[in-house]
């Protein structure tokens, strides 16, 4: 299978699989991979049994920290993270949203201080019944994860 082939091709690094196709580049951005000089393979619009169409990102020779991969939970909560060492999956990492997100999300409120002054954005993650929302520490406005704009 194509997927196995790709995973097998990675010797050491991180594989992010089962990303919804329309979220692949958001995941790429949230992990700040534009600035990463390692080998990166991106596959998108791949066939998947579990979802309509999926994407996959493989970063070679880099083991993403939990704090980094947790950001993915915001935009692709069902993505699968595997850490590969010597061609083997050494860790299947569950996605859990961090309690607080610093400088990741932009506040959608045009009157918020963070959009006018050099102030780092801080959002706290609020867990409701079956829903999550983000609350701006400054203007105290809440937003849904699907409305999130990244910084």
């Amino acid at each position, binding site marked *: 299978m194509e997927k196995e082939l790709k995973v097998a091709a990675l010797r050491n690094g991180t594989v992010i699989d089962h990303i919804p196709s329309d979220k692949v580049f958001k995941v790429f951005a949230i992990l700040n991979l534009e600035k990463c000089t390692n080998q990166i393979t991106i596959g998108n619009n791949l066939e998947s049994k579990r979802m309509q169409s999926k994407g996959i990102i493989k970063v070679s020779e880099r083991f993403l920290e939990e704090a980094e991969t947790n950001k993915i939970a915001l935009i692709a909560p069902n993505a699968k993270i595997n850490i590969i060492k010597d061609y083997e999956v050494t860790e299947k990492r569950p996605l859990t949203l961090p309690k607080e997100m610093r400088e990741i999300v932009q506040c959608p*409120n045009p*009157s*918020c*201080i*963070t959009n*006018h*002054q*050099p*102030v780092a954005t801080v959002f706290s993650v609020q867990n*409701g019944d079956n829903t999550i929302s983000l609350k*701006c*520490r*400054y*203007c*105290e*406005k*809440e937003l849904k994860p699907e409305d999130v704009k990244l910084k």
Partner: protein
Amino acid sequence: MSNKSLVSITDYDRDDILSILSSAAEFEKNPNRKILDGKVVATLFFEPSTRTRLSFETAVIRLGGSIIGFSDAATSSSAKGETLHDTIQMVGSYADAIVMRHYLEGAARYASEVSPVPVVNAGDGANQHPSQTLLDLYSILKTQKKLERLNICLVGDLKYGRTVHSLIMAMSHFDPTFKFIAPEELKMPDEYKVFCRKNNIPFTESDELAGNFDDADILYMTRVQKERFRDLMEYERVKNVYTLRNDMLSESKPNLRILHPLPRVTEINPDVDANEKAYYFQQAQNGLYVRQAIMNRLINK
């Protein structure tokens, strides 16, 4: 950062609120006490609000403290492009506390994080104005002799009116029942209804004012502003429907009191003013004692 800052009403728990209210009662008995002797309070009003500024400044002066500051952004250093961070740092090195009003939401929270001295939020855009909420609570306590299990009717602009949102948060400690009366365009936002459900606070909604508050202990009126309406015809209709007149009070409870954060426009007909149930002018005066209690807590405790 000073953890004594008062930015949002949710910074205070039930005990904090009750301690401010009992301290305010002491200041009402004797507002002239030199407990801030030698202290300097900065009032930084990046957006003008004469009513709020004079209330805070009187509170400080009656306690023997002194005032520095400015009353609008045009005369402040921010007009020259100085960041809020730098203004707060500078003022924080002169003053023992900062009272700040700003047109940007979250400005006070940020100031409290970078200030070496406590910050009181005297309004940050449409967000928070906690001293208003505390004086509302003080007025409720004073007129009802209790805060628990009251029937509170909120009327007018429930969508943008920050005072009603903060009042819901603050009253949530005291088992209230709410009625939200607003035109369709200005209905209570979902997040506050979700908050009520989560905290087991019963509420009902209506778009009809007349005859709808006969079981209320508190009738909290707010300003319905023209700018909020896309359709001016709708504004003209709503304006009249949401005007409280004296004849509408005939069936109300004897203990009912009418509150309004002031200034009012057309929401309360002047013929209500002489009714003993009208409490909005005393409410504004209560602001002085509550602000004395806040400044005392910030500087002396």
